[in-house]
């Protein structure tokens, strides 16, 4: 009798243990994605500082970085770009096939996957998601990427777990466009969409029970002005090499801080455990700090961000800006732009602004983009003599005080607009101002608050030259289409062109369209090399320098593998784990 009791006691212990274990063990009927990262241990939380609050949690409308960062952790995409290898890999789609003509993509979805609220995910959700993204009335920022030759892609459900995408023309990067396109839960958003209110859905007042996604984490709490807390999604579809369910972390916290300096101080104080987008100066300060044995700092090399000086070549058809018209006579002259480029000491920018942790640029493609950079293009030599020669050949002259005069004898003076919130770009502007002084050009740096500065560039076009930077995006040339195409949304130097204003813009348009449909890499590379050549030659934007991606994390954070595509550090948050349990740290 006694022995029997002992046996059943043992059995019940085993049963309880088995049940507890099964909570962490995946069910067999699901198509799990197996991670190849180091196997970790569950538990703990990770805090990351954002420089602003997210504006929304709605993947359809989000454009700002804090929103996108949070949404990326809460949502899943069909095909994902690995930030470390920069290659595509299966995500919610476990496999895909491409038709021989390159126009049709058939995706096989994983089976048995559930949203974070427990509702099943299938082809209907995929079709619904693309219907929303492609709807013109929704004005989703993702829509542009889903058009080929101006035609939207079509999406059809083949069965519950397979979907077919058809493009109007062969689309060379089709796999990559699926990255970061969040799959939406039809059961939660269909009503909002039908009522035309999808843009208002999932704002920051949303309660955790009204929002669901396929990401590693789900919404737990939002405290305005303070933090956003995400918790582990128990229905996440990835497992580690040992079969444990991911993610390991219980909570992921986004703290809102006002500046990078505040971010550094919070990191040093231990309030955050991971930090991204460090300036070279702060990187140096952190590496010298006595507490530096607690964390590891990493220089992930040149990123994709490029900073450039853009000339305002916009049409002033209404004659609102008579001053600008006078200056555009110089700006429209290629020799003038080349002279400015030759007079800028890019190596000084890299040295003084980035403390050597950056790269001087010849075109808009940075050395970080090894796959696509035209390495035959040299970084322009700093040469005042060359610059003077170019100006002379374009009919400029100097008066006895050394001031530069144009053909009509007018002094050459213009402003350099820069956003005051970016200390590094303001520094660059001061260096450029000093460089141009050697040519007898008088330039003034005008630092305006970020929004006021962008309004002038994008809306009113009331500026002469501006120092801007473009960060993020993918390595693929297609992501720079909106800057390069003459009709592009961010074709900064000449917005809203009906047709290409110059022959070389026309050539860029054609090359970019060709590379979009060319199916092999060599062909596309050749086309994109030529685009870079044109930009370096014509210089509508003078590309200056690109900073390295500088990041840091606490020493015992496992699977910390920063990439050069956004989000640099949190892209694999589902694989993060603490080597030492929180209690012992």
């Amino acid at each position, binding site marked *: 009798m006694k022995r029997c009791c002992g046996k059943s006691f043992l059995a019940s212990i085993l049963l309880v243990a088995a049940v507890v274990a099964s909570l962490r063990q995946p069910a067999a009927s699901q198509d799990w994605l197996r991670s190849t990262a180091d196997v970790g241990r569950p538990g703990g939380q990770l805090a990351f500082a954002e420089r602003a609050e997210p504006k929304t949690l709605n993947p359809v409308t989000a454009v700002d970085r804090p929103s996108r960062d949070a949404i990326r952790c809460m949502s899943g995409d069909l095909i994902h770009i690995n930030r470390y290898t920069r290659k595509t890999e299966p995500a919610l789609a476990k496999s895909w096939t491409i038709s021989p003509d390159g126009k049709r993509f058939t995706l096989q979805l994983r089976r048995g996957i559930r949203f974070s609220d427990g509702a099943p995910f299938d082809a209907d959700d995929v079709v619904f998601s693309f219907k929303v993204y492609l709807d013109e009335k929704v004005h989703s920022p993702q829509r542009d990427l889903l058009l080929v030759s101006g035609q939207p892609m079509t999406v059809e459900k083949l069965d519950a777990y397979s979907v077919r995408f058809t493009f109007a023309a062969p689309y060379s990067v089709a796999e990559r466009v699926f990255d970061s396109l969040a799959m939406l839960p039809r059961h939660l958003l269909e009503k909002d969409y039908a009522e035309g209110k999808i843009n208002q859905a999932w704002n920051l007042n949303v309660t955790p029970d009204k929002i669901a996604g396929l990401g590693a984490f789900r919404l737990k709490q939002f405290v305005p002005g303070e933090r956003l807390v995400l918790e582990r999604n128990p229905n996440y579809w990835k497992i580690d090499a040992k079969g444990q369910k991911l993610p390991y972390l219980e909570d992921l916290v986004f703290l809102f801080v006002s500046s*990078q*300096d505040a971010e*550094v*101080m919070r990191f040093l104080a231990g309030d955050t455990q991971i930090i991204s987008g460090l*300036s070279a*100066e*702060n990187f*140096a*300060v952190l590496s010298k700090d006595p507490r530096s044995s607690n964390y590891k700092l990493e220089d992930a090399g040149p990123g994709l961000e490029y900073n450039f000086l853009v000339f305002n070549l916009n049409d002033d058809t209404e004659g609102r800006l008579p*001053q600008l018209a006078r200056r555009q006579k110089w700006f429209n002259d290629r020799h003038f732009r080349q002279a400015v480029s030759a007079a800028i*000491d890019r190596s*000084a920018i890299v*040295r*003084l602004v980035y*403390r*050597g*942790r950056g790269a001087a640029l010849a075109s808009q493609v940075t050395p970080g983009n090894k796959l696509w950079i035209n390495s035959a293009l040299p970084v322009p030599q700093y040469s005042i003599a060359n610059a003077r020669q170019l100006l002379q050949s374009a009919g400029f002259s100097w008066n006895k005080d050394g001031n530069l005069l144009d053909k009509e004898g007018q002094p050459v*003076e213009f*402003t350099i*607009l820069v956003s*005051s919130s970016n*200390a590094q770009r*303001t*520094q660059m*502007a*001061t*260096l450029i*101002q*000093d460089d141009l002084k050697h040519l007898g050009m008088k330039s*003034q*740096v*005008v*630092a305006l608050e970020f929004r*006021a500065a962008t309004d*002038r560039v994008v809306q009113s076009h*009331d*500026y*002469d030259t501006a120092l801007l930077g473009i960060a993020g995006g993918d390595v693929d040339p297609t992501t720079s289409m909106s800057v390069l195409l003459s009709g592009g949304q961010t074709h900064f130097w000449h917005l809203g062109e009906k047709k290409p204003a110059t022959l070389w813009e026309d050539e860029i348009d054609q090359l970019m369209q060709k590379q979009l449909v060319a199916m092999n890499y060599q062909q596309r590379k050749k086309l994109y090399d030529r685009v870079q050549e044109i930009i370096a030659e014509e210089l509508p934007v003078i590309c200056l320098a690109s900073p390295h991606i500088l990041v840091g994390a606490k020493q015992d954070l496992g699977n910390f593998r920063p990439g050069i595509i956004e989000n640099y550090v949190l892209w694999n948050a589902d694989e993060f784990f603490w080597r030492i349990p929180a209690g012992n740290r």
Partner: protein
Amino acid sequence: MRITGRLPVALGCLAGIHLLVIFAGFVSPYSFDAQERFHSFAPPTRVHFFDSNGKFHLRPFVYAVASGDENSNEYREDRSVTYPISFFTAGEEYSLFGVWPCQRHLFGVNAPARIYLLGADGFGRDQLSRLLYGGRVSLFGGFLAAALSVLLGLGVGAMAGFYGGRADDLMMRIADVFIVVPWFYLLLAIRAVLPLHIQPEAAFLLVVATIGVVGWARPARLVRGVALSQRERNFVLAARGFGASNFYLLRRHILPSAWGVALTQMAVLIPQFILAEVILSFLGLGIGEPVPSWGNMLAYAQQYHILVSYWWMLIPGLAPVPVFLAYHGLADYLHARLQSVS
């Protein structure tokens, strides 16, 4: 008595600082915008009397500095060559009082050595030179703005107090409005509507005008009080009885009696307005790069890495202290004097 004793110190201090700033071109070894890009954040240069062999030199000298790694801000002296400091030496050209071109500097060293008594900023610009040139903007900005607001206050206050009645009511209500105007936002708004092409001189005048125009209300109230009490005095009534005109009474009796209040106000307002300029420039709303002011120089210290690594970048924050002490000493003296007279 104690206060009177402080007057020469305060006046001497103010005169000294203002002279330094007026002759900034002469006193400073370099121009405010001369960059030496290989001396980014070079620390204050050490002035030596003994060379590396222990030999004493009567004429102080410096060593050239260089950083081993071109991206690092750690500088080492090259002790192989000494560079004596020469006085009344020729250097970069500047203009005295904005008119006469001049090349003579109080002190300097021969290239390639450079002398940074207060260190260099991120672009390798001499902090001492920038501090002196920046003082021009900050000190004279404060002075001009205070003069403007005291003049306005004197005019409006005297009229309001003297005429009384509706005119008084109207002017004092306007003064109330000016007191409650959030001038910081006003300046933000003004800067936003102005064209981008605004020369540093124009930006300077704009800052002065805004601070001055917004600040007239307080002195106006004080002057009004004086005018109110003066106009009932017997000598004023007598003069009126003899047929003196309003203008005569204002000029001869009311304004002279308000003069003491106005001067005291001026001594109180100048430091306040210097601070206002410093704050505006600190926030990027004042005068822009490369022209220095104490505020925009201090703005660099907002950055964490500068705050913890380069202490000499904080000196512009200390510069106003002696100026404020001297002005407050002056205000105390004027106040005491005013009270003893009345």
